[in-house]
């Protein structure tokens, strides 16, 4: 087996997946949930009569109400509503038989600003801490590799996973109204953790093999390390993946997209660790040698 030899094909496959998502990201952006934008979300079960509900929201003076049909009923999204709006809405709603409000969430502007700020901070903090951790962890790497190439290629792997997820959710958001909420950020950070985890397992082995010292070239050492760790990476990722996937298939509806993020992300993370990060290290090395 010689996966590193085909590295250009792996890069190509990654690009094929990333490019459409990135285009969508640039054109349509992401659909943010009320947590980030502020607003009201009401979930109703027992009716799919969109027109009737729209009428009720209009009478209750909802601002910018948008009604979408779901599996079990309807979801209303609007600008933040007041208690009076909601009271009027509920009185009218209760006149329809067997209809009930199962969930209402209102997020005011000051709260949504804070949630957005915290999301940004946690993403940045997580990235910085991971890089620092990797730099410390791999500070002693024998020649010809250097600790920079370990850190940077690991981060490129993370970037790959983040782009895959953001791109897919941008497409899902544009065509299926799937929203990006704090749980998405959580899932993304968890996925990044997984991805780094897989990368670290491979890099540990590369380091170990480099320290042992053989007559092999750098590419051969990396290749051997990847092959040696293949079982392990696939096993560990598969165990986490299968459990998230089953939860996605059979679990409750409230965290469906949270789980979907992980289902996609774990695959991307494993792929990027095995086929991208280690390959990039070899590419880095050969570029450096060409320069000389």
């Amino acid at each position, binding site marked *: 087996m010689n996966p590193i030899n085909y590295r250009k094909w792996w890069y190509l496959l990654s690009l094929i997946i990333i490019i459409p998502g990135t285009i969508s990201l640039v054109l349509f952006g992401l659909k943010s949930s009320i947590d980030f934008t502020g607003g009201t979300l009401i*979930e109703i079960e027992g009716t799919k009569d969109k027109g009737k509900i729209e009428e009720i929201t209009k009478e209750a003076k909802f601002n910018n109400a948008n009604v979408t049909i779901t599996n079990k009923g309807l979801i209303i999204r609007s600008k933040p509503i007041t*208690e009076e709006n909601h009271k009027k809405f*509920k009185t009218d709603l209760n006149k329809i038989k067997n209809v*009930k*409000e*199962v*969930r*209402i*969430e*209102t*997020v*005011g502007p*000051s*709260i949504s600003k*804070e949630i957005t700020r*915290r*999301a940004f901070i*946690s993403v940045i903090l*997580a990235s910085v*801490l*991971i890089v620092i*951790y990797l730099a410390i*962890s791999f500070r002693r790497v024998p020649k010809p590799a250097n600790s920079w190439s370990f850190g940077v290629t690991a981060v490129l792997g993370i970037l790959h996973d983040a782009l895959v997820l953001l791109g897919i959710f941008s497409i899902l958001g544009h065509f299926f109204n799937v929203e990006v909420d*704090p*749980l998405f950020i*959580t899932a993304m*950070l*968890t996925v*990044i*953790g*997984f991805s*780094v*985890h*897989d990368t*670290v*397992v491979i890099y*540990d*082995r590369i380091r170990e093999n480099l320290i042992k010292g053989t007559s092999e070239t750098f590419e051969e050492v990396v290749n051997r390390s990847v092959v*040696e760790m293949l*079982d*392990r990476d696939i*096993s*560990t990722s598969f*165990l*986490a993946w*299968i*459990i*998230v996937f*089953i*939860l996605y*298939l*059979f*679990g*409750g*509806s*409230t*965290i469906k997209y*949270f*789980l979907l993020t*992980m289902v996609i992300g774990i695959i991307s993370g494993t792929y990027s660790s095995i086929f991208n990060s280690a390959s990039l290290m070899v590419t880095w090395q050969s570029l450096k040698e060409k320069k000389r």
Partner: protein
Amino acid sequence: MKKKNRVWWRLIFLLLLIATALAIDWPKEIKIQMPKPKVNLEKKSPFIKFKKNGDLVNFKINYKIKEGLDLQGGSYLVYVADLSKISDKDKSNAVDSLKKVIEDRVNAFGLTEPVVRTSKSGSEHRIIVELPGIKKTDEALDLIGKTAQLEFKEFKNSDFYSTGLTGKDLKHAGVTFDQNTNEPQVSIQFNSGGAKKFAEITGRNVGQPIAIYLDNKVVSKPRVNEQINGGNAQITGKFDFQEAKTLAIQLNAGALPAPINIAEQRTIGATLGQESINKSIVAGIIGIIAVCIYMLVYYRFLGIFSTVGLGLYLVFMIALFKLFGVTLTMGGIAGLILSIGMSMETDVLVFERIREELRNGHAFISAVKLGFIRAWPSIRDSNAVSLIICAILYTAGGMIRGFAIVLALGIVIGLVTTFLGTRTLIDLIAKRKFVKNNWLFRVEKKGEE
């Protein structure tokens, strides 16, 4: 000889740990008495009582795992206090008394375990109210949000003027029914100062109306027929019973020292939560079975140990949940199930290493030893990264915090079960003859390939 002893000691320690965890997990009361040394162990909600030679030690534990609002249904409300009319030095006092008044109001509503706390973000003072299991959120919102400033005003020169008699002079308010119309009304009883003021006001206004204002709005304008001594009055408005009850609670708890505005509201129905729990438990069980099958097929003999390890892991996790009073949310369930996958990863890293050492020709006993030692750096690095991320997520709060706590606990417990549990059990059988059979470990020696 010495080494063998160490394995047995570890086994005893492990068994003690399991016994303790099981005692905490067990959903019923337990009483254990040992005659020598004299130890009494009693588990009775909410404490574990541990008596040794007469010294009593109490551990508080949660009998049941607490369910978060998203699982049992309930409301999460964030209010922002409008302190613009309060001077800077009184602000923190005002927030404290806001909290106190809201607590009193909520408690009077008779909910189980409501939570009221304050937080400050920038210059904004917030009051966070969690109402588990409430069905009538709208009533709760009514109850909490109204300022409830009661004021009696008298009629002078074709307008109403303050009398100085306010809600502060109240002793008690309650719901009664009008004897004639049978409509609900709020009866109030003034304290001695209030009764005196009330007698004076009614005395000088015989034949005139008195207006009762609530939050600067007229509720009723009764005409005074004679001076009222004794300090009792009724507020009659067009109340229904619920409104009268809410008003009585608000008056008893006192007026809010500053107005509050709702900034965030999340209410989830109990059915949605219950449905999620049931489905996730089923999914979790299927997931666990799938993981066990994978481990058994892929690692054969070693897989048995990780299956046992998984059982230990769950026993420990539930015990910790109860011990620390972790509130289980939907995010927590996801974290728990995910952490099962992650704890298996530690096993995989160790088992793969053991197989590698077996393939390199080591005997089982030394392969196990090397496997655990050499797998450690990568296990440490990967789990450290996950713990860093958990720490960051913990600061985010809400459902995410539940996820982070459970995942972090899971990572630590996963390491303990592998390095204490699985390791001890493997060490126990390491010297048996049958471990020489390489098929058991799916290992082909290099020469045989």
